[in-house]
């Protein structure tokens, strides 16, 4: 009997009366959600559909009629297909084309002469059949008549259809398909090497008593501050054809796999190092004491306590490195030589061959490993449980001369590698002609004399970085606040969160190409931002959205969830709570988001390389273009300018946060 009414009797579900706050929040969420859809969802969708669009001249869709010399008597109508079968002027494989394809109709009339009095009629068999007369588009099944002079200017347009033709073409082109193997191989090797080195370093920093830990930490984060092109340039100077250490390679060339792996290790090391360092620093001393009391050997303690404790960190670091390497464009562009990599293929297809459809195909293929790595990583993160209970005792390493010495030596070696690469670029930027004329000079900084955009590009980069840092922080924090603190709209919030997590899995090249497809379409009302600073800011904010979003979310999650309830019970509008409590408490996190976006906007190449215009050239792209043009020393100089700017930005960030914290965070 009691079972019968176990559920609330069916009745109209109550809906809470919406307060003004709710409506305002809903509005905000809609705006930022719309931003993510326009800046991410829609472009990716358009790109995906592009990769599936094939263009082909459909000859059976056009009919012609030819008059006699008087122009009054007409022959019977005949399709272009029939004419082609008879004459064989267009081979079947040449019918495949791209979205820009044009086919002159005069080919089908061997006797055509533009001075003849003969008139021609043309019409489509279907409504969609389209042809151009000069630059006027004509469509439809009505007959149109032209004299010979005008008929000369008639070209057919291809019909588009959805299908996997582009992918078939891709996989049947060995040079392209080989890039998949190359990219996965390079990413795998780099991952193993980087994670091993990063683990050893993090271990040295957390489990030994070696000196100068702070200094090593600082040095190990340097590569974050430079574009990934820079290690490539350094490697060219060190091991290239005129490189000082060329002999070390025993005849192998640095241009190719070797260079890619060394450079990748350089620029991914800080990412892996920081993740593993975090994982290792949450060690519970009691586990080590327990191991010692059970008389476990050092090795056994290492394999049963240290490694399992950091395993999620290791997996996470591995995925991050793999994704970074496989999606990186700058490094293989500089040092990859003829070794095909996916990200470079996109660039070559789009910029080199103007084959946008094939660029989209490579993008989709590049999305697969990135999305896969991302998905697996997210799953692992969810499984991670808090290893550190509230009662954990922090681990304090004990002195051990041999172990400490070994750790110190290793850290010195890695630091030497990092500093050496940077120093090489610095020297290259300052000398006349490496390695033959080592006279100091500033001529390499005379960027205005080279291709690439000159000092204006540098100014543009700073502008981009500042705008990205400012608007990015605002958008990201507001978005994270809505996800975390708005109540209700559960569905909307989860969609929003999903969109916010997506950029992590989207390589920069893919995003950039998607932007071309989406924003460079005259039919798009947002077409006007194409080629402006705005699109660069939008693209960069979106490209680095996820990490910033997670940072903001972490900060917000640390706030008592009942603050909002208290605010409502005290009848205070949410914005008052937001500006008086939420924002001040989260200020350190917001500053971190700002500097993160700034540094990345300074160094990024991949997405913006498709989007800059003549007056919005960027410093990082200038490095690429000057290197491409053979001005390697100026490229190094510009790379170093980016590095200095980022160092200064970091210092300003440190000073500002300290100052602000002292004022607004007195309670800490």
């Amino acid at each position, binding site marked *: 009997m009691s079972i019968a009414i176990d559920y609330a009797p069916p009745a109209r579900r*109550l*809906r*809470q009366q919406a307060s003004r706050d709710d409506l305002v929040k809903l509005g905000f969420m809609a705006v930022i959600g719309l931003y993510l859809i326009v800046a991410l969802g829609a472009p990716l969708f358009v790109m995906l559909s592009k990769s599936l669009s094939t263009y082909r001249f459909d000859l059976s869709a056009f009919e012609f009629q030819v008059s006699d010399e008087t122009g009054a008597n007409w022959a019977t109508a005949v399709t272009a297909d029939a004419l082609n079968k008879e004459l064989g002027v267009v081979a079947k494989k040449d019918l495949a084309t791209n979205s820009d394809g044009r086919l002159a109709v005069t080919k089908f009339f061997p006797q055509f002469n533009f001075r003849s009095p003969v008139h021609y009629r043309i019409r489509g068999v279907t409504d969609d059949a389209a042809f151009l007369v000069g630059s006027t588009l004509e469509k439809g099944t009505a007959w149109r008549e032209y004299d010979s002079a005008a008929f000369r200017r008639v070209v057919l347009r291809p019909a588009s259809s959805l299908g996997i033709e582009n992918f078939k073409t891709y996989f049947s082109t060995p040079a392209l398909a080989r890039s998949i193997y190359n990219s996965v191989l390079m990413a795998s090797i780099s991952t193993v090497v980087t994670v091993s080195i990063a683990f050893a370093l993090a271990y040295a920093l957390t489990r030994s008593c070696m000196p100068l830990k702070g200094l090593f930490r600082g040095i190990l984060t340097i590569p974050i501050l430079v574009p990934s092109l820079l290690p490539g340039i350094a490697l060219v100077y060190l091991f290239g054809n005129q490189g000082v250490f060329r002999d070390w390679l025993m005849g192998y060339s640095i241009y190719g796999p070797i260079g890619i792996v060394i450079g990748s290790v350089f620029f991914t090391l800080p990412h892996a190092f920081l993740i593993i360092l975090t994982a290792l620093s949450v060690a519970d001393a009691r586990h080590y004491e327990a191991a010692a009391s059970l008389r476990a050997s050092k090795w056994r303690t290492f394999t049963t306590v240290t490694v399992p404790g950091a395993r999620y960190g290791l997996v996470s670091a591995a995925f991050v490195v793999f994704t970074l390497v496989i999606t990186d464009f700058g490094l293989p562009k500089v040092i990859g030589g003829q070794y095909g990599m996916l990200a470079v293929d996109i660039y070559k297809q789009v910029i080199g061959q103007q084959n946008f459809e094939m660029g989209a195909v490579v993008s989709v293929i590049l999305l697969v490993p990135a999305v896969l790595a991302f998905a697996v990583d997210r799953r692992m993160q969810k499984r991670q449980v808090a290893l550190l209970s509230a009662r954990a005792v922090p681990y304090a390493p004990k002195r051990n001369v041999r172990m400490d010495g070994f750790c110190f030596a290793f850290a010195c070696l890695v630091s030497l590698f990092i500093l050496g690469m940077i120093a090489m670029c610095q020297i290259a930027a300052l000398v006349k002609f490496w390695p033959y004329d080592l006279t100091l000079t500033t001529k390499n900084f005379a960027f205005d004399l080279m291709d690439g955009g000159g000092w204006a590009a540098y100014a543009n980069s700073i502008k981009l970085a500042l705008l990205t840092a400012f608007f990015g922080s605002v958008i990201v924090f507001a978005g994270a606040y809505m996800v975390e603190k708005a109540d209700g709209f559960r569905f909307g919030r989860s969609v929003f969160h999903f969109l916010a997590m997506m950029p992590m899995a989207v390589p920069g090249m893919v995003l950039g190409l998607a932007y071309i497809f989406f924003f460079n379409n005259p039919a798009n009302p947002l077409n006007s931002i194409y080629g402006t600073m705005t699109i660069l800011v939008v693209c960069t904010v979106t490209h680095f959205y996820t990490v910033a979003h997670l940072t903001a979310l972490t900060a917000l999650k640390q706030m008592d969830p009942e603050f909002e309830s208290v605010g409502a019970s005290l009848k205070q509008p949410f914005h008052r709570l937001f500006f008086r409590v939420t924002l001040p408490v989260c200020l350190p996190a917001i500053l971190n988001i700002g500097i993160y976006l700034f540094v990345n906007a300074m160094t990024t190449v991949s997405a913006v390389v498709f989007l800059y215009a003549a007056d919005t050239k960027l410093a990082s792209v200038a490095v690429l273009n000057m290197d491409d043009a053979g001005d390697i020393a100026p490229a190094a100089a510009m790379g170093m300018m980016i590095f200095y700017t980022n160092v200064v930005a970091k210092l300003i960030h440190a000073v500002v946060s300290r100052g602000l914290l002292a004022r607004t965070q007195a*309670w800490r």
Partner: protein
Amino acid sequence: MRHAMSIEPTPTSIHRAADQGTTPSSPYLEIRDLWKSYGDFVALRDISLGIGKGEFVCFLGPSGCGKTTLLRAIAGLDLQTRGVIWQGGRDISILPASKRDYGIVFQSYALFPNLTIEQNIAFGLENTGRSKAEVAARVAELLETVGLSAHGKKYPAQLSGGQQQRIALARAIAISPGLLLLDEPLSALDAKVRVHLRHEIKALQRKLGVTTIMVTHDQEEALAMADRIVVMNHGVIEQVGSPTEIYRHPKTLFVADFIGETNQFPARVLPDGQVEIGHSAFCCPTDGFAAGAATTAVVRPVDIIPHGAEAHAVHSLDRPATPQNLIDAEVHVMEFLGMFWRTRLTAPRLGDRTLVADFSVNAVRRLRIETGGVIQVEIPRERLLLYPRGI
């Protein structure tokens, strides 16, 4: 078992609040037919309750019983699936939290960490048309009320847990709400502070006369503070009543078991109005139970009266003997708990089941009760309670 008392598919549940006596004819807060479900899970099941103006009511129950859900529904923080809530003659069922009239204190205090104590208390006062001086005066008054005048310029992190809790209370009553909601306000504090704050909150509530609902899982807290206790379990109200009613006359086995300690024995009602436990008959009120009904008999450890070895001498002194409820028991384990002894007895007449009894230190000394000894104990007739047998 839990369904037996509280789920009747009849309108009687609506009037249960009125049945239970103490509420005035038109309660200040009235909840009718309230349900809350999360998907298939029913968190609140047909809750009806009235609370009088100025009353201090505790929602008491184990974790997951729905007491916090009910509080949050009243606060407009988690909307009920259906049902209505009236407060002060106004239908607040679907009003957003900000349009209701209450102050709330959470277990976590939820003090704003970057604002000083004064700014915290003033938070709800600013922006309401009061002048700066008025706000400052009100804040000073509230600080005085909670006895923390010296700490106004400090930040919450600089105060102890008990002090923070008092600030949260001051912030909640600053806007003079009609209803004060306390969500486990004391459970994060240590025992001494808890007992102290209990008195303070109760005194403050009396002084302000504000209708108060407190959610707690601590029965002692509820017994000490509440005018009326609402005992909840599995999303239903098991019983509403004053602390003594709840303790002395628990309506369901759950209430008996949750509040205070119990001995429970399977029992069968005999035709002559006695009950059979083990293989013996005992006297107790059997109203409402048919002969042969399977029941659970409950007696609290503190209600068991020790008669010592010389039983006859003892009960001839003070009370008339009830031979049926007098049993011989062997003392198995004695545990000294400071204010009393907890003993574990085995009685052949109870089918060799263990009977837990609490004896005063005095009685143990006087009657020379010791481990291994055999004593006679009485289960008072009116303290032996019967409940339908649980499933």
